[in-house]
């Protein structure tokens, strides 16, 4: 196909998304940047960013976010990873059933998940409190206590998100060629050695991608917090995504909100940048130029 015509067709096909891109990405971004760097009068100012440094709620949000992030990712990732390995090791007819069940939490709306865990975490009538009573952890106001609200949130989030990690790792495990295992068994490796020296290196891309996607997913999370704790008690479960919303729609401080939004974007951007270094977009899309014959 002639080079010029190909480009024309390509542009025509891509025009809808370009329009969308302009309206819903470029324009909002410009709007945010504009707002972040101006004050109400329209003058250029860095005050919005300076306010960030002295904002107590922001620093609480950031430390909460770190807490939430580390706790969630650690828990979700380990659980998801272990479950993936376990299911992978299992050979049998129940495999599909197991996989379907593990898959379920991902299909449930975060709002409903919030609802579920409200019921479960209730101090008086919820099953969790009841089950933990014999261990001396009963009669606790899980969602209402400053110190336990975040762990409760992390627990609910793990239930929701660990299947996501599971999915990625499991998919990665499936791409490992069985011949590698056959060679390993002929070479005399034990099961553990095979896992450590063959399987793990083979799924390294999945391991990294799962971690990064998990991280990004956790940082993005809003719905669950809104429903489960609404940021409380007090500011105990204020995380960055939640605070960004609050500043915009509870405080109505457009300029400050824009500054915070940009901060949030930058943080996510860092993770995406890391992810891009580990995934080969070119390979995924076959964009490497082919050789002539």
């Amino acid at each position: 196909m002639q080079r010029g015509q190909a480009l024309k067709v390509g542009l025509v096909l891509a025009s809808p998304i370009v329009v969308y891109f302009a309206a819903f990405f470029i324009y909002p971004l410009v709007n945010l940047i504009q707002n972040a760097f101006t004050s109400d009068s329209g003058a250029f100012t860095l005050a919005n960013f300076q306010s960030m440094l002295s904002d107590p709620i922001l620093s609480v949000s950031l430390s909460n976010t770190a807490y939430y992030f580390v706790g969630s990712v650690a828990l979700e990732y380990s659980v998801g990873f272990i479950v993936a390995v376990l299911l992978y090791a299992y050979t049998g007819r129940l495999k599909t059933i197991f996989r379907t069940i593990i898959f379920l939490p991902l299909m449930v709306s975060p709002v409903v998940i919030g609802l579920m865990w409200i019921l479960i975490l209730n101090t008086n009538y919820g099953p969790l409190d009841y089950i933990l009573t014999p261990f001396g952890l009963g009669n606790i106001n899980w969602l209402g206590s400053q110190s336990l609200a975040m762990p409760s949130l992390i627990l609910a989030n793990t239930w929701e998100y660990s299947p996501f990690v599971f999915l990625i790792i499991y998919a990665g495990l499936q791409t490992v060629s069985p011949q590698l295992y056959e060679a390993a068994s002929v070479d005399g490796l034990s099961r553990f050695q095979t896992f450590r020296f063959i399987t793990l290196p083979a799924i390294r891309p999945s391991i990294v991608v799962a971690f990064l996607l998990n991280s990004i997913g956790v940082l993005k999370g809003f719905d669950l917090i809104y429903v489960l704790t609404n940021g409380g008690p007090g500011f105990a479960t204020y995380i960055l995504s939640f605070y960004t919303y609050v500043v915009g729609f509870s405080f109505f401080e457009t300029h400050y909100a824009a500054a915070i939004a940009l901060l949030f974007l930058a943080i996510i951007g860092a993770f995406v940048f890391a992810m891009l270094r580990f995934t080969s977009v070119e390979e995924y899309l076959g964009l490497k130029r082919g050789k002539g014959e």
Partner: protein
Amino acid sequence: MSEIVIEGLTKKYGKNVVLDDVSLKISAKEYFVLLGPSGSGKSTLLRLIAGLEEITSGSIYIGARKVNDLLPKERNVAMVFQNYALYPHMNVFENIALPLKVRGMRKVDTDRKVREVAETLHIHGLLEKKPKQISGGEQQRVALARALVRDPTVFLLDEPLSNLDAKLRVEARAFLKRLQKEVGITTIFVTHDQAEATTIATRIAVLNKGRITQVDDPYMLYSRPNDVFTAGFVGSPSMNLIRGVARKGGSGWEFHSEDLDVGLESPGLVSETEVTLGVRPEELEVSKDGSGLGGSVSNVELLGSISYVTVSVGKTSLIIQLPGKPDLEIGDHATVRFSPESVLLFDAKSGMRIEEKA
């Protein structure tokens, strides 16, 4: 009407020159083969003729019409791909019918034409099936049907037999040859298999590294190769090629290399020249004793009616073709005899064949 003329065709990908100033004339109704190793540019040449790639410089004429800037569908060519490229989501009938449908042919006429072509190719029983439900050989015939249904001017085939198993390949070869003759269409066939090329082609163009080394009928290619590459590429097992020097000695011209000396018959040379000597396996004789070059048998391959015996003369290995089962085993001492008329000489630097004196 459907001759193809290619003038000075060059194709570059960035700095990479894939085809270098290629010129060809293909007559109407010829079964023309582009032969060469992978990377030689033969598929690229075919794709340029089809219009799937852009020409860097040069021209292509189909039936006296310059087609450089024409889209594939405007060139009225048909192509069969190595993996047949059938539309997986359509059944056989729809696959064959699509080219006609796109040209706005009426359903009634399309129906008739498709069935006609299906009959010719013996696939009329498969019309309802989907590509994944039929065998490789059947898929190939569907691809052929789809190509022929449009009555194209030119028929382009890109290694269509590579995906078939050996026996099927031989059958398909013969089938294609008959079909081509029957339909009488100009056909360009790309392959890296020289046996395939020599059995079906009226003429062959040999390509190496983007250049044409020789265009000739199969017999001439075999007996009078233009250069060392062609000599070594055409013919299986390959021609024996030995480097050395040709010089005039006391008893006439002779070839001298580290391991052997062979008398030459009036080579077209004036002075001492570095040459490559070529001789086909069937032109050599081997015996356990007797006159000739001494060596030892290093390999024997039995093929039933003929055998190939490899004899090591010093560091040089020579392959000799013998009828039936030879009375030689690995390790035996043997002598090899050259007949000077059957020997070909190539200039060692340019690779070109040196003509004998008339």
